[in-house]
């Protein structure tokens, strides 16, 4: 019996040669020092497999139709057995993939692994990065709730800033004059066929190059890459002290990948997928469109950049960054690899992380957005129960002041906090500012009647720091968001 099986395997191997190839790949020698810093690439791959399988399962029920996708997702989330978990796995798997591809990129950059002879390894990875981000973006759209619809709109508007052809690109993205029946299926085709196909292709190429050029050895400072001698030195080192990839190095990939899957599973099970928003009806105007967490920093960038630069920046930021990212190893492919000898590389990574982190933090808080949930000021903040100041407090909410200005913990953060405005502005200054506006303050001259303006000023005049001596101001209430 055993010999029959062995004969079968031998015959298969004779006809295909696959087993030998796989053995060769599994047992190829890798540098001994490649330890825990080298697990992010394989973990990205494991996360991708998770996305493929959960994605296929979701596709068995998801209806890619502008009119029905929302209902099918509601069914998947609330009624299908394990549907909630499958959606959660797909969502947190996507998040994991983005974090891991980011970590992998940072590691490769900091250890100079993109240098000779691995320039094309970097190139294939640098092409995979925007594809992964593209999956994240189109994936959020396929959720096809209100956020999905306005996400398409924002994408179309950004593309619309392309000089000359912008309008056509925008309507090509929308698949027509407006969001409609043909819009969702474009993104479905991208998310399910086009981008994954390209990702498979590039991963194949990426892995082939990893095998061909070998895993980069951990850098040692004072040992710069010299393209003339690098390959010979690398192979000599492998002969001397290389270890078989399987299982000497691979076990770390498996352990880390396993931990990643456990975390994703736990999040999917206990936290669950992002809730579906309102239905994708473009005529429902009570929407607060926000990208998923991975693009919040980019969302924040567009709130904060000078509007005059915006048209230029919308296009040129991704294009310039993309080109620099792709070209990196062709600009600089030799010399020191150790981060200890490359302070600019370390500084660049830190600066990028700080920038994205700060923008992300601001994106979560979105202080530039009006606070639509602002309620009329409570009695303990108003402190009077009749007269002009009381009327003014009501107007402060009614006329929209409170959407942007905060008083004692109530209201938005778009404009200055007015809790103690009477301490730093005279009545005349306040009047001029309200009537004429300035910068981001609208002019209310045509909106307020003279009596209303007088009441509003009377109220603002009571906003002193020491006003608390008369009544205790409440400052504990936090912004509900």
């Amino acid at each position, binding site marked *: 019996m055993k010999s029959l099986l062995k004969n079968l395997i031998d015959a298969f191997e004779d006809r295909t040669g696959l087993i030998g190839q796989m053995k060769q790949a599994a047992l190829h020698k890798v540098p001994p020092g490649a330890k825990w810093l080298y697990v992010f690439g394989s973990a990205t791959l494991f996360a991708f497999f998770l996305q493929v399988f959960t994605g296929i399962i979701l596709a068995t029920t998801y209806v890619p139709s502008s009119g029905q996708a929302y209902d099918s997702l509601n069914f998947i989330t609330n009624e299908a057995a394990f549907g909630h978990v499958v959606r959660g796995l797909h969502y947190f798997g996507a998040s994991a993939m983005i974090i891991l591809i980011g970590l992998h990129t940072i590691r490769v950059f900091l250890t100079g692994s993109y240098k000779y002879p691995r320039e094309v390894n970097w190139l294939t990875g640098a092409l995979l990065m925007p594809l992964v981000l593209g999956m994240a973006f189109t994936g959020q759209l396929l959720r096809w709730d209100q956020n999905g619809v306005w996400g398409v709109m924002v994408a179309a508007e950004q593309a619309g800033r392309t000089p000359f052809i912008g309008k056509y690109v925008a309507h090509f993205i929308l698949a027509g004059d407006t969001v409609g029946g043909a819009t969702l299926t474009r993104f479905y085709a991208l998310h399910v066929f086009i981008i994954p196909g390209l990702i498979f292709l590039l991963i194949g190429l990426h892995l082939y190059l990893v095998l061909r050029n070998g895993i980069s050895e951990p850098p040692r400072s004072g040992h710069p890459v010299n393209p003339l001698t690098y390959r010979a030195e690398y192979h000599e080192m492998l002969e001397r002290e290389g270890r078989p990839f399987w299982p000497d190095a691979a076990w770390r990939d498996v352990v880390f990948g396993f931990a990643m899957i456990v975390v994703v599973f736990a999040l999917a099970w206990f936290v669950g997928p992002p809730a579906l928003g309102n239905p994708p009806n473009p005529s429902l105007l009570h929407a607060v*469109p926000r990208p998923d967490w991975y693009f919040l920093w980019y969302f924040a960038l567009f*709130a904060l950049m000078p509007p005059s630069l915006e048209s230029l920046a919308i296009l040129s930021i991704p294009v310039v960054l993309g080109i620099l990212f792709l070209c990196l190893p062709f600009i600089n492919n030799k010399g020191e690899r150790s981060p200890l000898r490359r302070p600019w590389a370390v500084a660049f990574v830190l600066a990028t992380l700080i920038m994205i982190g700060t923008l992300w933090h601001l994106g979560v808080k979105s202080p530039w957005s009006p606070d639509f949930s602002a309620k009329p000021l409570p009695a303990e903040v108003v402190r009077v129960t009749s007269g002009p100041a009381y009327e003014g407090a009501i107007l402060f909410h009614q006329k*929209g002041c409170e959407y942007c200005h905060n008083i004692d913990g109530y209201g938005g953060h778009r404009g200055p906090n007015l809790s103690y405005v009477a301490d730093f502005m005279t009545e005349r200054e306040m009047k001029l500012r309200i009537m004429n506006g300035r910068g981001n303050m609208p002019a209310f001259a045509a909106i307020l009647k003279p009596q209303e303006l007088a009441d509003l000023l009377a109220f603002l005049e009571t906003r002193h720091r020491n006003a608390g001596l008369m009544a205790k101001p409440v400052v504990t209430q936090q912004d509900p968001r």
Partner: protein
Amino acid sequence: MPPEEKLYLPESAADKKMADRRRFLAGLSATLGGLAVVLAGFPLLGFLFSPLIKKTPRIWRRVGPVEKFEVGKTVAVSFTDATPLPWAGVTSETAAWLRRESETEFTAFAVNCTHLGCPVRWLQSAELFLCPCHGGVYYANGDVAAGPPPLPLPRYPARIRKGQVEILTSPVPITPFTF
């Protein structure tokens, strides 16, 4: 050079003829392959770009009787796109902010902020449009009051016919490159 490659070097007239033949066959294959791609690709690209090629008709949609709207007030109205696809469902709806300027005059504003297209909200008591995304603000006439929007709120054509207010279905306004 390895000896087996040497065999292919054209040395005699016969070899030269063979080389010409190979060049011709390679050219033929490349040309036919290219033609096949163009032939099959032409309708595919046409299909993909059809939203740009096929013009959507623009039609007047009723949004309500004139007397429903108060002079000086701005309200949200919705209407169905000109030629909704049968499976479009709720996505075939479009909204506009309709302001009754006077007894006979209506202004219809697009709901899309000119910054990045988010839906602006009208606050009647403050008489301002506010955008929930990046904090754009517009006055009642659509002019920019604050924030990043580069242009005033676009308008859709509106008219009164037989006691009904009508809005002309229009493409979503796309803010062009401005600098």
